[in-house]
């Protein structure tokens, strides 16, 4: 019967000759190949000291941005939390008081803003959802830690440092 694809390949199987059966030439060939690798430069990047360059669209740790006057952009609208497929973001909104105009851009701001880095999948949907251009995933890799509770990042870790300091 003819095979379906008609692409049958006939494999030639010659019996091994004496030197092939003696193993030794093959072993010496193998040893020379590994020896070549012995003198090759290692491809390792020793991570904490050396870092691989990130690509243009790398998404790392979140940062909450400030505007050009150093005021927090976030208005606690909750769109990022809504768009988050991993439900990693929570926030509590608060009203801006008199005298805080230099801290928050609009009348409403996020008093508490938490991202659970163990839940976050770094999809970037919060970045896309934000109408105020307040959140960006432009940071580094999230560092390792010992306790689960330490992976819930609050405003102390997320908000950009003030401009003129």
């Amino acid at each position, binding site marked *: 019967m003819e095979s379906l694809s008609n692409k049958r390949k006939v494999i030639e199987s010659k019996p091994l000759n004496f030197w092939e059966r003696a193993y030794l030439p093959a*072993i010496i060939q*193998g*040893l020379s*190949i*590994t*020896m070549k*690798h*012995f003198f*090759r*430069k*290692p*491809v*390792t990047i*020793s991570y904490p000291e050396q870092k691989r360059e990130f690509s243009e669209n790398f998404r790392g740790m979140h940062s909450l941005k400030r505007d050009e006057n150093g005021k927090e952009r976030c208005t606690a609208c909750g769109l990022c939390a809504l768009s988050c497929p991993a439900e990693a973001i929570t926030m509590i909104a608060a009203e801006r008081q008199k005298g805080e105009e230099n801290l928050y851009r609009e009348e409403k701001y996020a008093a508490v803003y938490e991202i659970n880095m163990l839940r976050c999948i770094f999809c970037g949907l919060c970045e896309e959802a934000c109408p105020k251009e307040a959140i960006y995933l432009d940071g580094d890799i999230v560092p390792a830690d010992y306790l689960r509770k330490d992976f819930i990042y609050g405003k102390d870790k997320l908000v950009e440092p003030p401009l003129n300091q």
Partner: protein
Amino acid sequence: MGTADILIRFALIVIIFLISLVVAMYSTYAERKIAAFFQDRVGPNRAGPFGLLQPLADGAKMFLKEEIIPANASTFLFIAGPSLAILTACIGSAVIPWGQKLTIGTRVIDLQVTDINVGILYIFGVVSLGVYGVMIGGWASNNKYSLLGAIRAASQNISYEISMGLSIIALLMMTGTLSLREIAEQQHGFWSHGWFTWNFFRQPLGFLIFIVCAFAETNRTPFDLPECETELIGGYHTEYSSMKLGFYLFSEYINMFISSAVMATLYFGGYNFPFMHHLGLSDNWVTILGVIALFTKIFLFIFFFMWVRWTIPRFRYDQLMDLGWKVLIPLAIANIVLTGVVSTGLKYFGF
């Protein structure tokens, strides 16, 4: 033999014991480092400069780990296994001549613990005892994988000891002595009477058989079937933990060191190096350089062991037995016959 002699002998034993432990310790480091280089990696480099303190860290870890003796294991044999393994690994170094005589004042110090006239037989006895540690440990663990590993180790070592012995017989036909000191002395220098003095150039086939068997006896790749992780978890030391596991791993490296020393002594001139008596140095300096030469040879052999480990994959069990019984033993016997014919012929034609 005065008290001073005994003290010197004792000091020599302690020094050799310490050296074999240190060499074994740093062999683990070298193994990891060399493996890394062969695989284009960096290897351990965090503990100390270049990771040089890594063996100490590993040792400390081994000591501090929890010691587990399985409920169904035979406690006495379970402890006896690794103890025997490390004991037999260490006592092999007693007959190896580490150097020529050292003269301090009027005292002549022999750099060899004991020069018994059946040195090679002693080495063989010790090597065959080595399998007991593995066998007892594997049996006492009461675990299928351990038992399989132990059985493999036993049959493998017994099979390869035969061809190892046969390859040595051909060598002994040329040297006419069993004492390692005399064999080393016969290979004096590098070149005399128009031919190399080292036994490797008189017994290349014998050396090939010997080194293959040495790989098998020390359970090194490609003959590491007794402890192959992929098939038998850990082989005979599956159930072991803490320093008892450390003893097994350690004895493997000491075995490697001792068998390298034996190979260097039997086939590569031991402490002899080229032009050793044309440099115009005093005898003591020649001795010291000779010790360095011997250790260089040993380290090269250890490197070769590791080089082969990261090159050749493991044998299948039937291939292992095929190689041992159908190839190496006939080859070794042919080597004996060839040696006899050639040496008689050379004598007959007056060389």
